[in-house]
């Protein structure tokens, strides 16, 4: 059932430090960015929090830039800003591609990369990209900053290593020179939640990540090892089909998701390996 609106509180920080102090004092504060996930949860009555910390005015968390050779993307960068960033488009075009397929224009204008990751849905479209890009999640609290490899960030279904007094402030993506590939399968052409979403990086050390086929986004390490060892794409696609752990749910079936994973990897092969 719907959450009663009058029961909600909002704290508006003036700076990142101010925000960090607020959640240090009161870890029950839930950070909100574009609020595109939070509003859905409040409307459905599934979002537990009633006290919110509004990150939206914190301009410093929107920056996208190059630092020590890596692209650093502020947690508050919107999906639109990411698509428009020359650094992202030239270095990690698959991240721009993922952002282009999120919701529709309105959601892309509001929704943020930090929100997509912190929300922790296994169907989050940017997650497989961050996984194959071997991104680092930068977490900051009033007292310290931690850098967590993206692949260790999720611990279970919608569970992360983020502590209640921490904010995600940025993501760092090391340079990616290899061929990269992304595909979202959502059935409807816009405003669709992924049934399968896959990102692949080729080269010496191939990386394959899939969303919506397990409780969290997963890196398919057996498939990666097979590809690195010279397996054909037919062989690799059979491995990926056995490696993913999809379920039947409201949106699709396990059989379909498994089969599509295999097909997509084969398509990556035919589109990129000539």
């Amino acid at each position, binding site marked *: 059932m719907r959450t*009663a609106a009058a029961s909600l509180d909002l704290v508006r920080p003036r700076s990142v430090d101010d925000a960090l102090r607020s959640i240090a004092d009161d870890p029950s504060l839930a950070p909100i960015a574009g609020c595109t996930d939070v509003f859905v949860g409040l409307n*459905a009555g599934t979002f537990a929090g009633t006290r919110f910390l509004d990150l939206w005015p914190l301009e410093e968390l929107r920056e996208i830039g190059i630092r020590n050779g890596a692209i650093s993307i502020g947690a508050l960068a919107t999906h639109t800003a990411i698509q428009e960033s020359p650094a992202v488009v030239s270095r990690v075009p698959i991240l721009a591609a993922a952002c282009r397929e999120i919701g*529709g224009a309105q959601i892309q204008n509001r929704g943020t990369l930090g929100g997509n990751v912190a929300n922790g849905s296994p169907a989050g479209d940017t997650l497989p990209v961050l996984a194959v890009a071997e991104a680092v999640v930068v977490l900051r609290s009033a007292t310290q900053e931690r850098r967590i490899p993206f692949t260790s960030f999720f611990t279970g279904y919608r569970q992360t290593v983020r502590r209640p007094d921490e904010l995600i402030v940025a993501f760092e993506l090391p340079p990616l020179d290899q061929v990269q590939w992304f595909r979202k*399968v959502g059935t409807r*052409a816009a*405003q669709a939640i992924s049934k399968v979403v896959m990102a692949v990086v080729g080269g010496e050390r191939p990386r394959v990540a899939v969303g919506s086929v397990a409780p969290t986004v997963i890196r398919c390490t057996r498939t990666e090892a097979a590809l690195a060892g010279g397996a054909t794409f037919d062989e690799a696609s059979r491995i990926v089909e056995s490696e993913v752990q999809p379920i039947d749910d*409201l949106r699709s079936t396990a059989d*379909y998701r498994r089969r599509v994973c295999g097909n997509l990897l*084969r398509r990556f092969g035919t589109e990129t390996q000539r």
Partner: protein
Amino acid sequence: MPVVGTNVPRKDAAEKVTGSAKYVDDLAFPGMLHARTIRSTIARGRIRDVRLPFDRAGYTVVDYRDIPGRNAVALIEDDQPLLVEREIRHVAEPIVLLAHQDRDALLRARVEIECEPLEAIFDPQQSVQVLKDLRIVKGDVDAALARTDVIVEGEYRTGHQEQLYIEPNGVIAVPENGGITVYGSLQCPFYVHKALRIALGFPADRIRVVQTETGGGFGGKEEYPSVIAAHAALLALKSKRPVKLVYDRLEDMLATTKRHPSIVRHRTGVTRDGDLVAMDIDVLMDGGAYVTLSPVVLSRGAIHAAGPYRCDHVRIAARAVATNTPPNGAFRGFGAPQTQFALEVHMERIAETLGMDPARFRELNALRPGDTTATGQRVEADCSALQVLEQAAQRSDFHAKRERYAGTNRGIGLALFFHGAGFTGSGEVTLASRAALATSERGVRILVGSAEIGQGTRTMHAQIVADSLGIPYDDVETALPDTSSVPDSGPTVASRTCMVVGGILQRCAEELRARIGDLHPAEHFRRHGPTVVTKQYEPPHGIRWDDDTYRGDAYATYAWACDVAEVEMDPDTYEIRPIHFTAVQDIGKAIHPTLVAGQIEGGTAQGIGYALLEEVVMRDGAMANAQMTNYLVPTTLDTPTMDVVIVETPSHHGPFGAKGVGEMPIDGPAPAIVNAIRHLGLDIRQIPATPERIAEAACVSV
């Protein structure tokens, strides 16, 4: 200057575009309370206890004991209670109503309902509770089938479909002058009026129903507003305050009506040359927990089940049964999309069996003027099945593309179909609708209960009246559909608002013209005061229908259409994308061509959703995906380019030759698309043809 056939500005355009039009949730009354419905969470059971463990100060609470009249939603039968007394028959059945001034307080109130669950039935094939059955018999099917050498059989299934009007169901009930006034988003003010009369036990003149601007209906606001209006009225009477009851999307999807799921079986005899010899058709529809409109949905479905084809031996056995799911009800097309989906996919399979071109096979068998339908109705000169078929094949370059696409990821398919305008059988005679015209300072005012729900009722009626009177379009006004001041022109359903109600208005205009001579009605008003002309529906000459045998003229006339769908399959994801759509539809006369094209485009898009995307996932009798995130309707990006061709073969039954247009466009897209998928080599007999189903079929076909 005549305006019929031109694209005059809509009467409601300025208000809707500028946002000043008032929908029910925009209205507020002094002292108004908000309301909430407490519903069952199990599909079948008996209520043992209802507890309200909260401080009831400030709350108005209503249950079945507060109903002054009969605890029934008055429709065809009175089997559906307004509020459950003891027996729960479906999930989301209303039990208790709450009202409070503060919405948050309403949300906080906890109501505990203790039930003894009983075994529920969800599979219509297992149900023994028949809501309606009927048979249509022409010739001798068994004897004819025994003589034919080619017999093709098949079973076809369609799922629920949600109307998904943009504005959910909502009403405000206001206690007034010792009675009650209900403002609401609705299609049929007089249905609500009758339901309130019976539920409240009030005389007719103490009940007033006013239609507010309505954000779409598609049939979903035909019968359901009677329920929600009575609920709000009960709370208003008890609290003596205005009460607003507006559903959110989740509640609307969970609790209100959907399109009837169907299972249709065909056994058809054909000669090797492709002549239809006999059609044996069995139709099963899932009515949900109560009768609602199932008998008439079934009847329209059955009458359309043999399609626009000539065949001497036809037997259609149809039944609607009860299951423990929320009642299914009216939805654009009203049974015909289900049965014509089955038939047109079956026709494709017959052509395939015979090795015959699908267009040629339909051409051989299509009805021509003078032929008879399954009910024995002789179709008149306006039967244009052959013309629309030929034109659609030409416009879409059907034959060339069929060859060009063969063996690729593209497919092309067509569907030929028809749709009867107006109520089925003797329905219009029983309804005996009335409409009126009154002279006014401006010119004339139209007095009808027909609802503008986005489709253009006000505009189209004004065009008919303007030309029939020979006055400018701007001099025609429309009264608010308010049961206290307009005659009952019948429900706004069944593609009848133009042909039937428009026809009565045309007769009103002719009589008014005769009465006022050459004067402009405004001038006549100034000189003589108001003049009102009221007319009643008159059945056309020579129309006969027998409700007992289902023989005769099922509709005054039919509209005819042919759709061609072109699709592309993604070989990796099994997603079917419609890439181009041709819709050739003969609707007699387009009073307002832009509005007509809008109906055809919108109906086609909704039909594409029905064919490919829209799946109501039922779990334990409840819609599990009652959100727009998970119940997918097509977006503009999912809708192909459309070539809409309006054909105008006039019917002498409608004003200026017009027939119905609202419903027919949703009959064709699903079979046309599934036939295009068949062209890809995939045997699909169930919609929606989701990628999951396509993947399964691809596995079998490869």
